[in-house]
């Protein structure tokens, strides 16, 4: 600690800080577009603290304070407390089952008093990233071994499982992003490939008729056998592999997918996923149907997506201009200041604005990966990848949701969506990385 007396700005990656600041500023502007009413004094409402954009401004101030604290802290702190924090996070998540408060149908909040609520699953992202980094940075971890792999996956997915039982599947899904980190650290690529193939198979099941899909699969299998007839002659095992793959695929298509939709997902989730591909889901097949909230499952469930697509589509190439979006001003898109914040930007600034906006995100992600790669310590690198993966996953799911490529799941757009806990989580994630990066020269962890 001989460099204590130097400025805290030493070693800080200012590019990330600036990108962070720009995104938060864009976020506040977007919320302003959503909330703005003509004829009001915007200066006044910005200060008043009553409107959402004003609140978001206050949240960003809080985040700045938090960021300064993190930058002032010793980077060893994070390595030291990683496991402890993770345990604490998991404990909090269990606590929600006991003292949790139900908001919007998910019992995932802990009331803090004073109108503030804490969502442990949100905080757990940070803790999981730290814990995962800590696990990989242990000398004895050899990730090529199955045991380590299983431990790694468990660390990543334990909060996800708990989230699922809190009916917060959006948050649970976010933990899947850690697979990218695991892949970077040596998880066999087959898992990603199998996962992707499974995803494609599920989508194909939804879109195509069961019999058509079965025929297509069979044809693919036959063609593969035809092209591989020479190797097959030499090795019978390949034929066996192909046939078992074929059986597996048809099995998934025939039994696994309907099982998932009817038994794992709840009715509204299945409906949303079906409506994505333009189909109606028959809720009577869902085993969750006896829960008695059939009223909620009204038929036109694609209102959100439709209005969101109209808002984005009507922006056209260069948008309608700042504060001139009719969809935004008319409040046609539900939850526009939180999950659908992207639509207000897309409507006001069009394709042009969207590409620039997404470009900023891409630069940020690349920058984080570059930071991660330049770390000498495994802890920092794994943590860096965790940050990049979490942000990437949020952006992808959120944006795809608004443009109709993904079913609607409550996932915020990082740093832009309205919401204090989401903003704080991402701020802490990023600034811990910046802090670690500033100390990259110091020690091997």
């Amino acid at each position, binding site marked *: 600690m001989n460099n204590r007396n130097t400025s805290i700005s030493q070693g800080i990656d200012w590019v990330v800080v600036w990108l962070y600041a720009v995104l938060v500023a864009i976020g506040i502007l977007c919320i302003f577009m959503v909330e703005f009413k003509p004829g009001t004094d915007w200066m006044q409402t910005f200060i008043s603290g009553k409107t959402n954009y004003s609140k978001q401004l206050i949240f960003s101030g809080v985040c700045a304070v938090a960021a300064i604290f993190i930058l002032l802290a010793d980077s060893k702190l994070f390595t030291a407390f990683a496991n402890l924090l993770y345990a604490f996070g998991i404990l909090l998540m269990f606590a929600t089952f006991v003292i949790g408060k139900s908001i919007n149908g998910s019992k995932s909040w802990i009331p803090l008093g004073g109108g503030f609520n804490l969502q442990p699953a949100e905080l757990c992202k940070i803790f999981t990233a730290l814990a995962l980094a800590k696990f990989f940075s242990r000398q004895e971890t050899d990730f090529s071994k199955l045991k380590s792999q299983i431990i790694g996956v468990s660390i990543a997915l334990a909060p996800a499982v708990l989230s699922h039982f809190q009916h917060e599947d959006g948050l649970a899904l976010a933990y899947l992003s850690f697979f990218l980190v695991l892949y970077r650290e040596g998880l066999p690529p087959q898992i990603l490939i199998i996962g992707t193939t499974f995803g494609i198979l599920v989508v194909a099941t939804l879109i195509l008729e069961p019999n058509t899909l079965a025929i297509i699969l069979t044809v693919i299998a036959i063609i593969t056998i035809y092209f591989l007839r020479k190797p097959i002659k030499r090795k019978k095992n390949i034929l066996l592999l192909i046939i078992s793959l074929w059986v597996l695929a048809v099995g998934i298509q025939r039994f696994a997918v309907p099982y998932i939709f009817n038994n794992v997902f709840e009715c509204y989730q299945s409906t949303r996923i079906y409506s994505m591909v333009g189909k109606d889901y028959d809720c009577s097949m869902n085993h969750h149907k006896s829960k008695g909230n059939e009223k909620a499952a009204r038929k036109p469930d694609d209102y959100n997506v439709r209005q969101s*697509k109209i*808002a984005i589509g009507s922006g056209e190439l260069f948008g309608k201009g700042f504060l001139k979006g009719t969809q935004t*001003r008319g409040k046609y898109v539900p939850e526009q200041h939180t999950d659908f914040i992207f639509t207000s930007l897309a409507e006001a600034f069009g394709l042009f604005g969207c590409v620039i906006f*997404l470009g900023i*995100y891409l630069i940020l992600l690349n920058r984080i990966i570059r930071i991660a790669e330049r770390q000498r310590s495994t802890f920092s690198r794994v943590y860096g990848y965790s940050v990049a993966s979490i942000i990437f996953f949020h952006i992808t799911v959120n944006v795809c949701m608004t443009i109709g490529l993904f079913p609607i799941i409550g996932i915020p757009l990082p740093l832009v969506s309205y919401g204090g806990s989401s903003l704080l989580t991402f701020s802490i994630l990023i600034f811990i990385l910046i802090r670690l990066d500033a100390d990259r020269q110091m020690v091997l962890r």
Partner: protein
Amino acid sequence: MSVFNQSRSRVIQIIFAAVFIVIVAQLINLQAFSPKYRLAAENNAIYRKVIYPDRGIIFDRKKRSLLENTIMFDLVVTPSESRGTDTLTLCNLLNIDTTDYKKRMREIIFKNTSVRPSVFEPLLTPELYAKLNENMYKFPGFILSERSARTYPYSTAGNVLGYIAEVDTGFLRRHADEHYEMGDYAGMTGLERVYEKVLMGQRGIKRLIRDNKSRLQGSFENGLYDTAQIAGKNLYLSLDVELQQMAEKLMTNKVGSVVAIDPKTGGILCMVSAPTYNPNYLTGNQRRKHFAELALDPRLPFNNRALGNKYSPGSTFKTISGIIGLTEGVITERTTVSCPGYFEGCGTGKPKCLDKGVFNFKEAVAFSDNTYFSTVYKRILDQSRYGGADSALKVFNKYAITFGLGHKLGVDLPSEKNGNLPISSYYRKIFGPKWYSCNIISNAIGQGEVQTTMIQLANVMAIIANKGWYYAPHVVDSIEGGDEYNMLDTFKIKHYTDKRIPDSIFDAVQDGMQGVVDFGTAAGRSRIPGIVMCGKTGTVENYDHGIKQQDHSFFGAFAPRGNPKIAIAVICENAGQGAWYAAPIASLLVEKYLRDSITSPERKVQFEELKNTNLIPRLMRLAMNKMDSLKQIKENQLLLQQRMDKESNDTLDGEDGTEQENAKPVTPKSSKDAVPKTKNTAAAILVNEERKNKKISRTI
């Protein structure tokens, strides 16, 4: 360690880039290649509000406004904001009970959601408006919103001015290319209908932004695409409101009509169809009720009898027969015919004449001698130079047509009738090819198949006054800012009668008509001291289902003879001889028009007497009485039914004494369980009767 698995970092970056490319591709698809979303957004958010311009004002000949715009108020409510309203006070002011209030609110919310403003009570009366305005602070969510309405300051000339009403689907279908929308108001009859294009003006369009619940948020693009409304143009009529009002007064409690024309211009000075109605009845919030009442009235007040009813012209037609006879030379002014009490020419003893004796032309007109004009008519038809009755009738009709008979004159008011000039083919069907003059001799005195409208009769008077020309009668004299649609052009064409008719013949007819007033059929009460008026009475026999009714009283006149300023035609249905009612009414109106007022005391007395005379025909009075009692029975029926319903719905409800009181015993009250069936049958029978009565009254 740091280079461990470095290649996978590249893979992850590629995954990032790939996903972003997919997102951008979808964005390009949505934003660059799907114009439908722009349209969808506009449909969502832009509300086209039609701004209605003020309708044109209608003025009379002295620039007094007969029909203008006023502001009326609607009580408008936004249900979602109406919490905390003093419901009881509001209900007391509106004179409704709280269940009614709740019912209306439910309907409003059902029809128009609870966040949008809807009309709670339309077209408030001024008193109610004043009362509500004082108490508005007690009713959050309620506002008084103004709207333009039509008003008739003189409460007169309803049949001429017409009214506006909300367009219905039928109207929209008929006027598909005129850009009307549901909820628009359009002229439905009278001048409001005919001059709709002029009066309406041009609607403006305002584009407003609305939100997801259709609440308006402000103007779109600061009104860049808005179009301004252009106010409707004013109409200046030839109508004289004082004359019109006096005519309406004179025609109170009579059935018939009055038409007065300025012979110099063809401008209509007054047009009354009695019984008339107060046009202001059809503007306020009671419109529907009043409309129903008027529509069901057996006297048919909506029917403009001056244009829409055809009458046998009676003796007033003798002027035409006479002129044609003189022109064709079958008689001269000195020709005399003697009447032994009936017409001998056909051997049937018909038509009869009232005064026996020998008449020359002037006397024949003055005393309305049937025999004289039957002789004239027979001579015309029997003229061998025409080669038969067919062509002779053709010659006669050719003259008559130039007098504006047998076809529409083209008055600028709706539902004008043709009248009727019978042609030979019609008679061939009835009497066979060998028909001859005696078959149709009653046409000579206006009693046969000849039929005219009152406006045609007034026009004939104008032609005789002008000695052979006329302008088509019309109400609108000029349009403010010019006649953009050339609607008045036809009224500037001067029509001539057959030019062979010399002035001397008109002089002879005028001599006779002056005689009518001076010493003939209408002598006495119809003389205006100091004014030379020419007139012709008519006493028209008429039948209902073959049963002879009291005669129609006709009178046609113009004055003053030297410089005719007014031509007038009056009919009082089933009032008796022309001289009894129609002639004095006409003379009073002529005096009023020429002198601006009735001054002499005896004429004033005469005016009061005529005004107070009730000449509603017997059949109509019967029908009206039937209607009234029918209404009462229906009301009772309704109340009883309500009570029955209440009882069957909720047996715990106590007896409601007030309702029982309201049900006046027109039909004998019977015990509760016996009530419904007997009442129903009684009502059914009565409805049938009502229908029959209607038929009767129409045919009268």
